[in-house]
Each structure stands twice: as structure tokens, then as C-alpha cells.
């Protein structure tokens, strides 16, 4: 599971899309990618940078922040933990925490450009605890591993169990904040039809990323952090939360919008997750046989 420095030097490190926001400034200024691996796929590294950037770019243009719902396999882990309890133990969350991913994004983009290191990957990514972490060979890597495990247990396991929310996505993930920018580019969004809304706040309670607030309900749109998962659409008993094709009247073609968006999203989810599911099944099968 760990990646030794030898593998980083040899160019065999699989690329992780979470590093994308940190790569942009150094790539634009110096033409270098501050992540180990290779640009084009090789026999020893099929998950090279271009091989991973291409599906991300295509999915982002289509789904916007829907990537976090249908493309991000890390988010699935906390989604799973959030689904376990019947009711949340913690209901009241200070809304100011919503700004945290933006602050982390700004900090890591600037720090990565200044230090020429993927700062988030090296110090803050909770998923390093369960994916490709640095091999623990020094005090520094031991501290890094301690941070990864603490953040993973806190934000991906414990808090989702207590709040029934995707807390890592809501309070830390800089990539999610980065993806929010692309919510403006897609053809689809979620709308809250005020003519049908009571408001019962079921949508607000069901939103896994705290993207629906009383103000958002009044404005008829979730916040820009909405990852278009459709939880609010499922929760709303009056069909006030609907899928929407931008430019069209709200509620006029919501079923068509839902089907078109979900077909697009599932096309990416199957394409992206298919190989991972197949590899997992192969490993599980290998353990049994």
C-alpha cells in the first residue's frame, strides 16, 4: 500500500486527481508537474498523469461538481459511513465550516507553488491512510502517517457516523472546492421550486455537503458546493427539489433532465469505477481461491 521513494523516482506512481489544483501553477509557470509518475501511460504505470487527467477533464466538463458524487471513489468511503446510522447524533453544524475547503484550497495551491511539492498529498490527505501512502522510514513520514490516520478516522469515519454528512468533502477537501468552480459550466443543475416548497427543510437535512440553507431555498438554488447527488430530489415529498436543464423553466422538464443527467453521470461512473470494481473482485477472488 505504501509507495517507497524508489517507485516515485522510477515513474511508477499512479496519479491521483486530488493533486490537480496543486499542479496548475507550477505547470503553467515552469512546465513541470510536481507529482511523481509519468506523463503518458507506460507498461509499468498505466495510471499515468495524462491517462487520469483525460477522464477527469471530460467528466468535469459534463458533470461539474457531480464528479464528487459519481466519479470520486474516495467520497464513496464516507458516504458509506454516513449511511450506517438511522439518525444523526450531531444535527447543528456551524455554517462557517463551509468555507474551510476554500481556505484549504487557497493555502495548498500557494504553498505547493512556493515549495514545489504537492502539499496536500504530503501532509493533509486523509485517504493516504487507506491508499498510496509514503513508506514510513523517518520521523517525518511517521508524522505524516499520523496526520493521515487522524484525519481519516475523524473526517471519514467518526464525523460521518455522527452527522450523516460527507464531512471530509464539506470541511476539508480542496479538490471539491476546486470542482465547485465547474458547477457553472455544465448544462444541468438542481433547483428548488419555490412555488411547491413549504418549506419542510427535508432537503436541507438530506444534503450530504450542507449545500442547502434557508437562504438557498429562498433563492431557489443550492449553494455552489452542491455536488448534484440528487439526495434532496429523493427527499422532497412535494417535488420541489428537481433536476433542471439550464435555460429552461424550472420543473418543466425535470424528469427528462434527471434521466439525461443520470445517464451521463452513470456513463462516467461505470467507466471510472468498472475497472476498479473488476480489480477488487479479482483480488477478493484471489484471496478465496
Amino acid at each position, binding site marked *: 500500500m505504501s509507495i*517507497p521513494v*524508489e517507485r516515485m523516482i522510477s515513474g511508477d506512481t499512479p496519479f491521483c486527481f486530488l493533486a490537480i489544483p496543486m499542479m496548475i501553477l507550477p505547470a503553467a509557470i515552469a*512546465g513541470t*508537474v510536481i507529482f511523481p509518475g509519468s506523463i503518458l501511460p507506460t507498461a509499468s504505470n498505466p495510471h499515468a498523469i*495524462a491517462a487520469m487527467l483525460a477522464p477527469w477533464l471530460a467528466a468535469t466538463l459534463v458533470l461539474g461538481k457531480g464528479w464528487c458524487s459519481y466519479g470520486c471513489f474516495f467520497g464513496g468511503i464516507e458516504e458509506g459511513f454516513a449511511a450506517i446510522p438511522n439518525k444523526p447524533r450531531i444535527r447543528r453544524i456551524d455554517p462557517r465550516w463551509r468555507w474551510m475547503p476554500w481556505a484549504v484550497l487557497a493555502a495548498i495551491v500557494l504553498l505547493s507553488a512556493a515549495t514545489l*511539492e504537492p502539499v496536500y498529498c504530503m501532509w493533509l490527505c486523509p485517504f493516504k491512510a487507506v491508499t498510496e501512502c509514503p513508506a514510513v522510514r523517518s520521523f517525518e513520514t511517521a508524522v505524516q502517517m499520523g496526520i493521515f490516520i487522524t484525519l481519516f478516522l475523524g473526517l471519514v469515519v467518526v464525523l460521518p457516523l455522527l452527522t450523516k454528512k460527507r464531512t471530509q468533502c464539506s470541511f476539508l477537501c480542496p479538490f471539491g472546492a476546486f470542482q465547485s468552480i465547474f458547477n457553472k459550466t455544465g448544462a444541468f443543475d438542481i433547483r428548488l421550486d419555490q412555488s411547491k416548497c413549504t418549506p419542510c427543510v427535508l432537503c436541507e437535512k438530506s444534503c450530504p455537503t450542507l449545500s442547502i440553507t434557508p437562504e438557498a431555498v429562498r433563492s431557489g438554488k443550492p449553494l455552489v458546493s452542491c455536488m448534484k447527488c440528487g439526495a434532496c430530489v429523493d427527499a422532497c415529498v412535494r417535488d420541489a427539489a428537481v433536476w433542471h436543464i439550464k*435555460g429552461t423553466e424550472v420543473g418543466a422538464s425535470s424528469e427528462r433532465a434527471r434521466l439525461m443527467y443520470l445517464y*451521463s453521470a452513470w456513463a462516467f461512473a461505470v*467507466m471510472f469505477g468498472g475497472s476498479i470494481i473488476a480489480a477488487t473482485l479479482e483480488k477478493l477472488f484471489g484471496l478465496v481461491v
Partner: protein
Amino acid sequence: MKKLRSILGNSGAVLTLAFAVLAPFLLFGWFQAAIGAAHLRIDPTYSGGEISHIIQRENYRIVVNRPVPRRSPLQRIGPFVQLAWTPASLPAHLSDEVDVDGDGTPDVRVDIDSHNLVVDVTPLNARYRPMHSQGVTSFSALIARVKDGIVVRIPLN
């Protein structure tokens, strides 16, 4: 105006669906080719930099890379130069005087215990720093078995 916006919106939605369905078959290849053509390269901290010259010995060769300088005042990884001995089936102990900068005079003497991956570097030029390393100390001072060779990174002053 409302109707025009509706037509544009629906057209965008249809194009989105077509884009999503076509992406795995056509667009990924195009995007990948475009990214490949952008002349990006992996940061030399990881790749070791470009090859400067190759020194041929009787049973092996030494690939000498260009020095990798510190490129930012806040960069934690110091300047280094990467040398690689290939193939990996080297003698158990070897001692080489290496002309790193290609000026015809040796710059460092490198003693390698290739079985235990221990290296001793004695500078013959003030630009290079002495090093005794077993395994990976940092990105700028290490000995590691990488693919079919042994890579040594020597820190620079």
C-alpha cells in the same frame, strides 16, 4: 428570448449526453494526446532531471544526469545530481571516480556496496557534498535500486 434560451439549454443537455457516451471511446484518446503534446515534464525532484552524458565502463555504464538546482527559496529538497549505474547486476563492491560535469576531470569518488545498498561519496570538487548513505535519506541524498539500475543522488553545495 425565453424560447431561445430553452432551445440552447436543451441542445446543451443533448450534447452533454452525447459527450458522456462518446468520451470513453473517442475523447479520452484526444484529451490524452493533447495533454501529451503540452510538453509537460515530471518535476526533476522525482525524475532526477535530464541525462547529461553516459560513461561506459567494461561491465556496466553510468548515466549522469544534469544537476537539479533548488528552484524556489521555500523548496525543502536541496540541489542534487543523479547518477545511475546500470544494469543492476553490478559487482558486490565497486569504486568509481566520476566526471559529473563532463570537463574531463573526476568530480566525485563513489564507493557502492551494491548488495546492501550503501554508498560513500567523496567529493573531489567543492561543488559536491560528501555523503554516506544507506538507502533513502531524502530525495537529494539517496541510494536506491530503481528498475534495472542503482540510483545515487549526491547533494550539491
